[in-house]
């Protein structure tokens, strides 16, 4: 089904247009030269309205998304985005408000931000929340900048090391490096948790803090978390919680009570705001009272008269983002929390964990588990099927597309060879999970009996397997008619 959708420039022809303007009744004047583009990109495609509409509708129908299929992309929490949230975010009072509008004219928007700060703090056990960061990695950067500022403020400039487990998301070490601190990698133990002996050996007066995801990227709960936090605190360091996997513990455990000092919330994962091309993220952050003065501003507070105002914390590390963060995402997250309430949020996590374990138990005889334990909201299996020659995880992932599923995360975490990381989320019911499980079982059989079917996959998708190596080695970053024609010829 390798069908080719022409590029919009290929559909273009001079003189075609989508609107009919009235006859010009003023003298025609050229645009000022200073306003003209100087980069040669002056050719805009010329098409009729139906052509444009059909082109983009066709492309949208080729998209893989939670609107069209189960999307078990581990660590990404691709849960459904309720359509109600889209409606609320489009209310004129939210959608048409200008960020520079006077506070007195933005009270509703400020109230929403104030309440969301409050809810997120309550759910996670933290004193203070800033809604500024644009996404998870920026939340991490905010946290480690705050750690650095905190240590400097205390006159302790030599804390320059950040401990990061080897199973961590790549953004953790990248964040520490971005702040100019040294990354110290921690080993994992046989149970897939932080190796406590390695942690003890690497803590020192140079320790600025530790970054930890709990549950971790193997989908396992770090059950020594209280002791980990104590050890880091005794060494004078701070604990950063990567909130990417927060979907597993809503209403069950509060990171602030476990001993974390700072965390980010991926509103676009845990709190349903769209992501993965569906919209910008939001990486709001929460922290202890001790670190609150360092949070980025502006935050929202309530005055004695009951109105809402913006303020910047006294020792703030500064702004992380223009205006008030990705505001429309805050509206969606607020709506989610208000729709479900405390009991509903807890049920989200319970079902997410139940779903992941259902998939795990139904597949582990064919796909070995990375670590043989009960998992949290996601399970990490290995694409090493007994009796299958020359089949890799990538082949299994591509074949799943033919069965109508978005593939899971593959080759992550890096410490698991041929990793397949499956996160069904609470969105899916038993019926869909059973179809997914059957597809995975069928693929395991094909891997042994007809391996070429896997090597050739996907065969039912609009495009076949992409040449990822060539795309990385010889990227074409800008449309170029000649290069494009040559690629088409080679197909």
């Amino acid at each position, binding site marked *: 089904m390798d069908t080719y959708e022409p590029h919009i420039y290929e559909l273009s022809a001079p003189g075609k247009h989508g609107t009919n303007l009235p006859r010009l009744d003023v003298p025609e004047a050229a645009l000022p030269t200073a306003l003209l583009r100087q980069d040669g990109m002056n050719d805009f495609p010329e098409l009729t309205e139906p052509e444009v509409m059909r082109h983009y509708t066709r492309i949208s129908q080729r998209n893989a998304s939670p609107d069209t299929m189960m999307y078990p992309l581990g660590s990404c929490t691709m849960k459904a985005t309720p359509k109600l949230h889209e409606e609320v975010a489009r209310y004129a009072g939210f959608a048409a408000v200008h960020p520079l509008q006077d506070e007195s004219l933005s009270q509703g928007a400020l109230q929403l931000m104030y309440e969301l700060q409050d809810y997120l703090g309550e759910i996670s056990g933290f004193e203070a929340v800033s809604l500024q960061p644009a996404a998870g990695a920026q939340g991490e950067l905010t946290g480690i900048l705050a750690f650095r500022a905190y240590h400097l403020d205390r006159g302790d400039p030599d804390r320059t090391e950040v401990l990061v487990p080897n199973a961590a998301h*790549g953004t953790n070490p990248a964040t520490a490096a971005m702040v100019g601190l040294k990354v110290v990698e921690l080993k994992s133990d046989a149970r897939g948790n932080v190796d406590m002996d390695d942690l003890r050996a690497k803590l020192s007066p140079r320790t600025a803090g530790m970054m930890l995801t709990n549950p971790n990227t193997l989908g396992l709960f770090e059950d020594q978390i209280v002791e980990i936090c104590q050890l880091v605190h005794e060494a004078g360091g701070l604990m950063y919680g990567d909130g990417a996997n927060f979907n597993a513990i809503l209403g069950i455990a509060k990171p602030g009570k476990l001993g974390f000092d700072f965390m980010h919330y991926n509103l676009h994962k845990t709190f349903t705001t769209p992501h993965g091309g569906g919209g910008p993220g939001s990486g709001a952050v929460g922290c202890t009272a001790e670190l609150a003065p360092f949070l980025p501003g502006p935050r929202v507070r309530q005055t004695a008269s009951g109105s809402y105002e913006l303020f910047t914390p006294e020792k703030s590390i500064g702004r992380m983002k223009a205006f008030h963060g990705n505001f429309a995402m805050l509206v969606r997250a607020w709506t989610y929390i208000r729709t479900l309430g405390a009991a509903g949020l807890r049920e989200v996590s319970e079902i997410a964990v139940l779903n992941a374990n259902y998939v795990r138990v139904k597949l582990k005889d064919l796909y070995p588990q990375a670590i043989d334990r009960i998992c949290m909201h996601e399970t990490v299996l290995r694409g090493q099927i007994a009796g299958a020659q020359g089949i890799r995880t990538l082949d299994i992932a591509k074949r799943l597309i033919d069965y109508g599923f978005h593939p899971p995360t*593959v*080759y*992550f975490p*890096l410490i698991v*060879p041929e990793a397949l990381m499956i996160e069904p989320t609470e969105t899916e019911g038993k019926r869909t999970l059973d179809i997914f499980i059957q597809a995975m079982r069928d693929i395991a059989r094909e891997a042994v009996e007809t391996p070429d079917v896997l090597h050739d996959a996907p065969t039912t998708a609009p495009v076949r397997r992409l040449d*990822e*190596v060539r795309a*990385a*080695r010889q990227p074409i970053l800008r449309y170029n008619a000649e290069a494009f024609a040559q690629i088409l010829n080679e197909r």
Partner: protein
Amino acid sequence: MSISIPGDLRYSTSDEWVRTEGEEVVIGITDYAQDALGDVVYIELPAVGTVLTPGESFGVIESVKASSDLYAPIGGEVVAVNSDLEANQEPINQDPYGAGWLLRIRPSGEEEPLMDATAYAAYCEERAH
């Protein structure tokens, strides 16, 4: 999956190999490492003259699957780098012990604990399960 592990090299736990050639040593990544990484698409190597300490990160290697640091198995001064790899990384996958070499070093005498071929084979085997 059969991994090539030449008997005359020494190996680090981070999957670099070390070959002594007279006064100098040559460093690369092992067949196990290239197989685990998949097709390499980018590599960043240090400048000639850089002094490495054992265990220190000396560069970055990126494949379609992952980006990893490269760690110095031994200390010393970089006397040559395989700059052909910047334009074409294929030799790292095709010939990791030959044309895919990374650095030539004048050793300082400091080393990470290194394994012989037998120990490294066991180390690879252990991680495959």
